[in-house]
């Protein structure tokens, strides 16, 4: 009788833990073990200790992939936060005409399949026959290798990501803005604070948690970015868009599973550190987390 009493809650929660163990814990432990081996998916795995980790940490390609992701982060996240916040403030304004239309317009790219958008990017930014270069030529400017030069490939790809995901940023920040009580702004107006002052001293601090959340989520997304460079540039030209996620995939597709697993754990550590840093940096000054 007593056994049944204490067992009951565990029976109730066990379905979740069973599924979590099968699809969360097991793959994690498997991947961790894999990261210490050389294994190509068949036959016996060879234990190599920290060999995969030391190979990656001394590999210029690994650091180049992180460097590419870091540049992409700089090109995407700050712009997305600023643009997203600006658009969210506009959309939160009840007096804005066609507010519903703008909301749909901003969100539409976010719900459009990435591969379809990537194909449009390939066509629009084609060096020889793309619309962008056609327009440049009309005003007497020369062709630019948007996706074929190492200088422009990252900004062009970042623009695709911005176009695709800024809608998501707007949703998050709009939700944060709508949680701010209207009386706060009324009080500030009565005290004579300008719109700009209200934005800096009220809006930004009060949506700080939303911004922190957005930065963490987008940092994760940028360092795991795979589909965009895979479809648009295949990591080229000359590896300039070989992001950390794509570099990781290269190991897997080459059946170098041990190195791929080690790479993914290094990436987890990095993203965890970056996310922690972002959360601490953006933590509200009242001490709440």
């Amino acid at each position: 009788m007593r056994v049944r009493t204490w067992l009951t809650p565990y029976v109730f929660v066990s379905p979740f833990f069973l599924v979590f163990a099968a699809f969360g814990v097991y793959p994690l432990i498997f991947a961790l073990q894999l990261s210490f081996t050389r294994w190509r998916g068949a036959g016996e795995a060879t234990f190599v200790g920290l060999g995969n980790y030391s190979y990656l940490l001394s590999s210029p390609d690994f650091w180049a992939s992180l460097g590419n992701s870091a540049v992409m982060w700089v090109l995407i996240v700050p712009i997305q936060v600023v643009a997203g916040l600006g658009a969210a403030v506009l959309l939160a304004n009840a007096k804005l005409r066609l507010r519903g239309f703008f909301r749909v317009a901003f969100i539409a790219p976010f719900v459009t399949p990435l591969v379809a958008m990537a194909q449009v990017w390939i066509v629009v930014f084609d060096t020889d026959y793309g619309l962008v270069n056609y327009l440049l030529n009309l005003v007497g400017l020369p062709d630019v290798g948007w996706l074929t030069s190492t200088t422009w490939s990252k900004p062009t790809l970042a623009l695709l990501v911005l176009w695709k995901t800024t809608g998501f940023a707007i949703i998050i920040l709009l939700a944060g803005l709508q949680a701010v009580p209207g009386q706060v702004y009324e009080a500030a107006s009565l005290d004579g604070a300008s719109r700009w002052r209200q934005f800096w001293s009220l809006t930004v601090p009060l949506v700080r948690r939303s911004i922190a959340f957005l930065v963490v989520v987008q940092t994760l997304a940028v360092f795991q970015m795979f589909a965009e460079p895979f479809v648009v540039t295949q990591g080229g030209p000359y590896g300039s868009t070989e992001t950390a996620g794509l570099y990781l995939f290269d190991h897997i597709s080459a059946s170098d599973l041990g190195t791929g697993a080690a790479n993914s754990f290094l990436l987890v550590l990095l993203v965890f550190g970056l996310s922690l840093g972002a959360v601490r940096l953006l933590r509200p000054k009242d001490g709440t987390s």
Partner: protein
Amino acid sequence: MSTPPIGRRGFIKGALGVGALAVAGCAPGGSGQAVPSKLAAPSATASTVKGEITIWNRSGDLFKVFDAAIAKFKQAYPGVTVNHQQVDIDAKLANTLISGTDVPDGSFWDDAKIGGQAEHLYDLTDLIAPYQDKTAPYKISVNTVDGKIYGVPWDLDPGLLWYREDILEAAGVDIASIATYDDLLTAARTIKDKNPASKPIHLDKNPFLSQLWLEMLANQQGTSLTDASGKLRLDSPEYKKIFTWIEQATGDGLVTHAPYLEPADVNTLDNGQQVFVPWAIWWSFAPQNLLKATKGKWRAAPLPAWTPGGARSGVMGGSSFVIPAKAKNPELAWLLYEYLCFKDEGIQAVYGPNSVYPGGLSTSVPSYLPVLDPAKPLFQPIEALGGQDLWKVATEASSTIPAAAPIPWWWAQSVDYLGNNVQRLIEGKMSPDDVIADSAKKIQRNLVDRG
């Protein structure tokens, strides 16, 4: 509130215990891994053999061609049901072989990918033995890993020199005079003198294809990226010769650097800027399906040789058929592939006139030598090539192709180094010596040493 029946320490101990068990049970490469074995020929006769097989194939026209050929196979083997599926093989096959679930009984695959996955495939050495001496040596060599054959050799893709016959005539260049790559440069200079806007020789802008092309030129000289033992041999006179030739051609302004059959390429092929395309036989697709203004003006000739009297062709690309080690009915898959690759009726079904290609499949030739008779064409002369007998040109060129070495498992990954550096060479950003030194160093460190 009652005390929890299991304390925090107890929970942690339990979790650690479960974790330890999980670690012990999660080890990769456990006893469940099948060791690929040799496949034996089925003992049943064609009329009595029974069963069902799932066969993966590339999508597109080639799928339709094989679908029709498989229908004929089913007439010969009435007890065999073939579930023929269109699959994105590049994306799915390697992962499926590794995971071991829903594995097909047989699949089409690029030759360059087979060596890397040999441990997941049946050793077909004994089955292919009766046909080995009658198969193009190149195809046997690229399907061989550690002396065992893992792929049923299907097509042979000889390199040819595609050229604009009308422009050569106008410039007074006889195609027969282009016997070496130096002759090709001379002919290109002559054409450029006549038309300064011309950049007669196509070099490709796609790193993967440019490396595949490079291997064709290396194969012509009897070498390849690695030897039979897997030792890198990029630092060789043969590769140096190719890179120096590229540097010379680009330095003299003789090159159109364009991505394979993309609009910029098609446009310059059609407007007379490009006159020579040293490329595989599958380029025949372009005049037949893409080019408009110059359709009927292109012709094919054997590639020039690197030295007078040297081989007039090398292989660029190609595919074979593999039978996964976890196939349910591997013997039946073998019967199908034997029919398609080594039996006259099957070869005729694939290459001969069919509903998809009324004149026959002309983008490759079979690798089974007995059918490569210039006088007995499998596909007809091609109108888009001015009625030229491409079969004759291709089979004669094929007969000169040297053997190669197995394609290393990392070949596709090496494009990040070698393919990219070939592009830098074409763009004048690297010298031949730099390409060799940089590519060899990176391939050795990142790929060969990690095999």
